[in-house]
């Protein structure tokens, strides 16, 4: 592993995109207003949804757990302000497919009254890593870079994975988004302390905070903080601005020259990567006992009067945020959660922001025009030149279009990170990423179906085998009765009669032993004791 990161590496493909970042970095970050209503989905992360702990009418305090993590890969959900629960129901949530999820709706009282908080530990280094992980899990902290993977899972690389390098990802490569930039500028100490806590949990030898070179102020702020700490194993590394450098696998490649194995995890090559926002959230949790109740969010685009960054309570409706940024302009046309490359369009601004929301992009019509009509693929291969996963997007498209899901997996569909570079350069304006998502969903559905079918088949085969065995046993029993048992019993009956008469005759004299021969009872239903397959599989 490169010790000093003097030499950086290169990943295939990628794009230089216009940044549009300056428009939202002019003013310092301020806390957003407490909205009158908070909408808190219980599923804001990758993994199992949390289980609701409150019911309508309950009074909740800021930071109170309202949804408990269920299963291993899951995260708790907390009330982001104090107030009264008014609803626990399925509601639309920000999701690419417009899904609904169970949400807790809180009518805030405006008091921002915290639950009781513990004193900070005198030294987090004395905390056991597993204790630290539980803390982070209870605090509902998930990856704030966008994917929302529960952070504590990454803090547990598992046996056999010695972690050498902890990367704090401040690359923030997608256009328009500046929340990480502003966090690095304004709260570098939180990030650096959060990093050392995360490092303590995994025992990483070295730490790197990686920032793209279009954020000089952030780099300078972090640099100052790291120098003040004076730890030679911690470094701020400036990486070239190129989309998607902020992708975890791409950033690891740039820094170390090594590739995370396909379908593998960074821990497989001794690396763990966390977003800067996650590091700051970890800091706030460990040092101030705050669960994840707020985050920095960029509200930007030509459709917003005053683009800026806000520190927002999770669950705040988007409309509230836009109102605090001067409202919509006349040209506001599209509402995107996330950036213009990987973000998803939302139909309506009543939806809340969630833990993974880094940006609300309200685009003007001219800024992000409606997609143009897709034309046939001419196999120009421009997508091949820009694919950071080094895939052949034109072939993937071909097989997705033909619904040839075996072939598309031969071409490594599941290594696609959906960064959108291919679609961006496509001269035929084919919504390539959409085709890949479609293919992935179809394959997942097929696999689920296949699993069910396999189970049904096994159950059926087992049943046939059992019926066959029962039949054979029955026949065996009959045979035995017909052959052995009936004759034996006849003989025995005759014998018994004879003996009875003998006995009568000898009644007067000595009494002989009565030998009653009985046919052995066939071992009847022992086979039935074998476990029956489970009844209906939970769908």
């Amino acid at each position: 592993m490169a010790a000093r990161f003097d030499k950086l590496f290169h990943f295939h493909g990628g794009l230089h995109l216009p940044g549009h970042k300056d428009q939202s970095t002019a003013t310092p970050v301020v806390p957003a207003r407490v909205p009158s209503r908070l909408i808190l989905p219980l599923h804001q992360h990758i993994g199992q949804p949390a289980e609701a702990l409150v019911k309508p009418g309950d009074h909740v305090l800021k930071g109170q757990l309202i949804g408990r993590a269920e299963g291993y890969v899951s995260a708790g959900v907390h009330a982001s302000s104090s107030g009264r629960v008014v609803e626990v129901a399925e509601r639309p949530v920000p999701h690419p497919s417009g899904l609904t999820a169970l949400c807790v709706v809180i009518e805030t009282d405006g008091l921002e009254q915290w639950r009781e908080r513990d004193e900070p530990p005198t030294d987090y280094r004395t905390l056991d890593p597993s204790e630290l992980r539980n803390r982070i899990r209870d605090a509902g902290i998930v990856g704030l870079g966008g994917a929302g993977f529960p952070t504590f899972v990454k803090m547990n690389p598992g046996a056999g994975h010695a972690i050498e390098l902890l990367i704090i990802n401040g690359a923030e490569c997608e256009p328009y988004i500046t929340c990480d930039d502003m966090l690095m500028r304004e709260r570098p100490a939180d990030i650096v302390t959060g990093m050392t806590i995360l490092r303590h949990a995994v025992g990483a030898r070295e730490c790197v905070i990686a920032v793209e070179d279009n954020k000089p102020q952030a780099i300078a702020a972090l640099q100052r903080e790291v120098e003040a700490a004076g730890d030679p194993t911690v470094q701020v590394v400036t990486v070239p601005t190129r989309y998607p450098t902020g992708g975890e696998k791409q950033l690891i490649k740039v820094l170390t020259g090594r590739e995370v194995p396909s379908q593998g995890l960074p821990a497989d090559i001794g690396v763990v990567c966390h977003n800067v926002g996650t590091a700051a959230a970890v800091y706030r949790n460990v040092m101030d006992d705050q669960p994840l109740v707020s985050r920095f969010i960029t509200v930007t685009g030509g459709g917003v009067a005053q683009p800026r960054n806000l520190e927002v309570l999770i669950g705040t409706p988007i409309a509230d945020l836009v109102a605090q940024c001067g409202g919509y302009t006349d040209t506001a046309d599209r509402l995107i959660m996330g950036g213009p490359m990987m973000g998803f369009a939302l139909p309506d601004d009543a939806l809340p922001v969630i833990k993974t929301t880094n940006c609300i992009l309200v685009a003007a019509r001219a800024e992000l025009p409606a997609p143009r009509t897709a034309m046939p693929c001419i196999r120009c291969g421009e997508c091949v030149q820009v694919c950071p996963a080094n895939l052949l997007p034109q072939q993937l498209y071909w097989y997705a279009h033909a619904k040839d899901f075996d072939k598309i997996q031969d071409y490594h569909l599941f290594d696609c990170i959906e960064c959108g570079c291919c679609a961006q350069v496509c001269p035929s304006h084919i919504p390539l990423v959409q085709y890949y998502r479609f293919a992935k969903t179809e394959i997942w559905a097929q696999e689920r179906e296949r699993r069910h079918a396999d189970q049904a088949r096994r159950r059926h085969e087992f049943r046939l085998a059992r019926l066959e065995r029962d039949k054979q046993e029955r026949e065996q029993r009959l045979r035995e009765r017909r052959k052995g048992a009936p004759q034996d019993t006849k003989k025995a009956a005759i014998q018994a009669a004879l003996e009875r008469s003998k006995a009568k005759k000898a009644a007067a004299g000595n009494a002989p032993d009565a030998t009653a021969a009985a046919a052995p009872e066939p071992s009847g239903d022992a086979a039935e004791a074998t476990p029956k397959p489970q009844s209906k599989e939970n769908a």
Partner: protein
Amino acid sequence: MEFHTYSSPHLPAHNDVAVVMRRVLYALVPGALAYWWFFGWGVLINLALCVSVAVGAEAAILQLRGRPAGRFLADGSAVVTGALLGLALPPLTPWWIPVVAVLFAIVVAKQLYGGLGYNPFNPAMVGYVVVLISFPRELSLWASPVGIGAHTLNLAQTLQLVFANHFPGGLNWDAVTSATPLDAVKIGRGLDKTMSEIGRAPVFGDFGGVGWEWVNLWYLVGGIWLLRERVIRWQIPAGVLGALFFMALAFYLSSPDRFPSPLFHLFSGATMLGAFFIATDPVSASTTNRGRLIYGAGIGILVYVIRTWGGYPEGVAFAVLLMNMAAPTIDYYSRPRVFGQSRE
């Protein structure tokens, strides 16, 4: 407030098929002008005829297939096919030759296979080969370059010849056409002449044939511009020219008197047009980076083989079609190593 939703990415498009096609046409201009300068009005007549028939045929078939004709015509691919055929065919050929070639290219080779993006073979080259095989005599009558032939026809005379098969003032084919340099080499080698004997013919210029060398040079300039504009990538032209150069060099060095020089091969016939404009047709070519190099090299080798030992003086069209056939296989075996996959 409610908003439109579309799938990501959301940024405005970088690129467009119509823009790509338009740039290809721009890049053809210098070569086409040189061609016209050296070979006369027939070049422009062919171009006009081919492009208009191509657009007409495309429109008619799109109409029949119930496709939005306006949208597909606007992509400019029919114009490019027409223009390439116009530049590939002999300049004084009778009008029905370009018409047949273009109709076959657009109707059969392109639209019957599903239109733009679905044709396994380069449509222009299919059209060219159809007339080359069907009408060998007409396809062997090449106009003499200006200054070599006894007579140079003006626009009116050329029109009369092309459309009415009428020669002005007692001229005949011999007076206005001559063997191309590639023809001369083929015939000369057939008669066991040495290259120095063959090279004495007036059609040979400084490093290729008279006129042809400049036409090729200007196609090369246009091709380099296409590379710079990233309309095409370097692999296919490099493959074609590199393979042709090294084949020619190897044989030239082994026997300079029996084989023409590599430079002659690079600047004769349709080499540059083929390398930068025909072989690079993305639809029918290989699509992986490594595959394109192999695909191009295959064309270069086949061009040399056909020119040197084949039945035809020029082999670009056959080479391209043969490699079109191989493209899917090349693609399959030249897949790049995907990020995170182990290096075998």
